[in-house]
């Protein structure tokens, strides 16, 4: 980190810098927008939510009396009569990770005040998220057709369906909330609310392109959580 100055306060790198920021007045995270700090702390709290879900899942899977279903069979798609394990999940993951990329670019163009590019990239992210949720709906309906229910399934331990629907559902809910906000912010960016300093509908506060970065933090988090769900649920 290069040395920065915020209102005459020299930001030093490393541990010493952290200590001096912590010991200073006014702000602990120098130059960090309130909203951005809030999002980080919210995500920390949300991390605990997903950790509790995943740890419960591990505990539940470890203590069932019936065998756990073979996930590479349950989650396979038939392509020309040949089962391809995890095909759908691979595509879903690819789409979601790609949308993280477009989100990062949107943040970059936002800070460069390139309104058009920023707007299009947020829209692309939203479409990516929507595609992900759509594929998740497809996956759910396929499994439901095969008889998987929250209270039981034909493949093995009943907890499989319980944890599957609960955890992917909770994650899908996060993605859906994100998609709604992405569409709202697409509108806000294209309509130029940040340039005209238009006040928010509810909060009555003026916005800034930093909001795109805050939204991006949330979106990357949702992606990261998916990686863990992918690893623990589909690969294990």
């Amino acid at each position, binding site marked *: 980190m290069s040395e920065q100055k*915020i209102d005459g306060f020299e930001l030093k790198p490393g541990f010493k810098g952290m200590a001096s920021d912590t010991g200073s*007045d006014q702000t602990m995270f120098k*130059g960090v927008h309130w909203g951005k700090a*809030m999002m980080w702390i919210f995500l920390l*709290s949300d991390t605990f939510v997903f950790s509790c879900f995943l740890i419960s899942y591990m505990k539940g899977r470890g203590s069932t009396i019936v065998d756990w279903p073979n996930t590479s069979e349950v989650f396979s798609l038939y392509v020309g009569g040949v089962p391809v394990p995890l095909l759908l999940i691979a595509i879903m993951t690819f789409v979601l990770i790609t949308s993280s990329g477009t989100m990062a670019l949107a943040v970059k163009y936002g800070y460069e005040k390139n309104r058009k590019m920023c707007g299009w990239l947020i829209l692309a992210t939203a479409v990516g998220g929507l595609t992900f949720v759509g594929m998740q709906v497809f996956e759910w309906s396929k499994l439901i057709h095969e008889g998987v229910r929250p209270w039981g399934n034909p493949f093995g331990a009943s907890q499989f369906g319980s944890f599957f629907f609960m955890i992917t559902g909770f994650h899908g809910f996060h993605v859906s909330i994100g998609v709604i906000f992405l569409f709202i912010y697409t509108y806000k960016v294209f309509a130029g609310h940040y340039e005209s300093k238009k006040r928010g509908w509810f909060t009555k506060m003026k916005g800034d392109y930093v909001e795109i970065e805050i939204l991006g933090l949330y979106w990357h988090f949702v992606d990261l959580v998916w990686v863990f769900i992918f690893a623990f649920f589909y690969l294990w």
Partner: protein
Amino acid sequence: MSDEYDNNKSYQAQSSEVIDGSTGSVNPDIDYVRPAEVGEQDLYHGHSFIEKWVFCQDAKVIGVQYFLTAVFTGIVGLILSWLMRLQLGFPELAGFMTAEHYYQFVTMHGMIMVVYFLTALFLGGFGNYLIPLMVGARDMVFPYVNMLSFWMFFVAVAVLMASFFVPGGPTGAGWTLYPPQTILEGTPGSGMGILLMLISLSLFVIGFTMGGLNYMITILQARTRGMTLMRMPLTVWGIFTATVLAMLAFPALLVSAIMMTLDKVLQTSFFMPTILKAGEVLEYGGGSPILFQHLFWFFGHPEVYIVALPAFGIVSDLISVHARKNIFGYRMMVWAIVGIGGLSFFVWAHHMYVSGMNPWFGFFFATTTLIIAVPTAMKVYNWILTLWRGNIRINTVMLWCLGFIVTFVNGGITGIFLGNVSVDVPLSDTYFVIAHFHMVMGIAPLMVIMGAVYHWFPLVAGKMLHEGLGKWHFWITFLGAYSIYFPMHYLGFIGVPRRYFEMYDSPYMTSAVGMNEFISIAAFIVGAAQFILVFNIIKTLKTGKKAEQNPWKANSLEWYTSTVPPEHGNFGERLPVVHRWPYDFSVPGAKDDFIPQTTAPSEVIHTEVEKT
């Protein structure tokens, strides 16, 4: 040094233009405070009655809303405890009460008092009101989210109260809601009651998260110029640490509530093992009830400190102000708060010694539990050393503080009993446990709340509460609370189990009858005594004498607002600039026995103030 220090004007002090009241000297070198990093906060002032008092974005109004809603639920909890005591002391008078009713009252009393009363009161009530004022901010950093937080809490309370009126009534599973009995037929309120409870808890967590983010960011990122973390009043430290705990502990509650809701509604088996009922195997199977206990107590134990830490912080400030002495070992107090907060995440399974655990886990959790006694004892010693040779004013506020210290030590010592596995096993699920946790996290924090109400009422309402009534309130509550809980320790030792509707004819239980009657009478009196405060508040609002600004001669920023009670925006045109900690009381060489945080060093250059 300031001879005629005008504290009404102190909020106008600016770093470079501090003018000494007596000599008129300006000393920019030693009075330097860095310029503001963040611009003025953009505040939305309400225009209509609804925007000013109902859906209000001002943290102070939100704090009062939280306070009143929490007190309402607290009164419901109090009435439930009366009903319980009526059954235990005088069962012949409680003919209307069935065992199911009793379990429902026990459950709702516990949940209401811990979550909806104490947590909401300390963090939602005192947190909202005091944080922005004490750190020198205009408002919370996200006023709109803050407003949503209160209304989410309000809905949570409404849903909770609705469970009294649904078929089957509220849940009667005990406040810990242990599965599998919680959601099985035969437990009172296993239908709609438990469902509403779980929904209400989830709403509470969501609402609290919104508030908690506000408290944390306001403290971390919106302090005024000169306000370093180590110059914050301990009240803010206590509330801050409690908020951090809540942000990390409530997720476990949310997750367990979601999973149990699914167990209830969709017949999943997260927590439900294979169950035989009247010879028939139920649909459930393969789940782990112990998992719920782990999740619940991972929330439940930090929850104890979510209630206790704000009380620790507030009482430190009250003692310091009313003993006219700086808090002894401020930094140690801060680190003790943080240390207790951190340790509280590693002790949860001491609630589960009898649940069936590997003995090594019991050993581990007993060790961590007893380690918590170290920072806690530091705090108690520091409170006592703060009082030592202080200029103590025995007013109502100080009485509550002294009551707190005694009660807290009492409850803490029985905590050491219960922290040890071998002592806990025979004592668990007896009245000893009831006595322990009511002393340490019921009565003790409540005494702080009472002290805080008497202390800050002049700020909130601009009028002084009646001292005489306050002392009556204190003495009845203090002596009464000991009359209730001291005998309970004994009941625990003779083995009276908690949560029993009646003691039947068990011979050794009959010796507890007289004591139960005594406890019940004391409980009725103590409960009734709380209405002295309600009466005092109503009377004071109508006819009380007007409070001068800063009646207690305190140093912290909340007493140096532009108007009393403070208006939206708190500090008038200019935010205060802070030069010192809030504990400069009785400084040798100073004219007054207090030096406000806003006083510049050049004004008190001949005194022996500590560098903070």
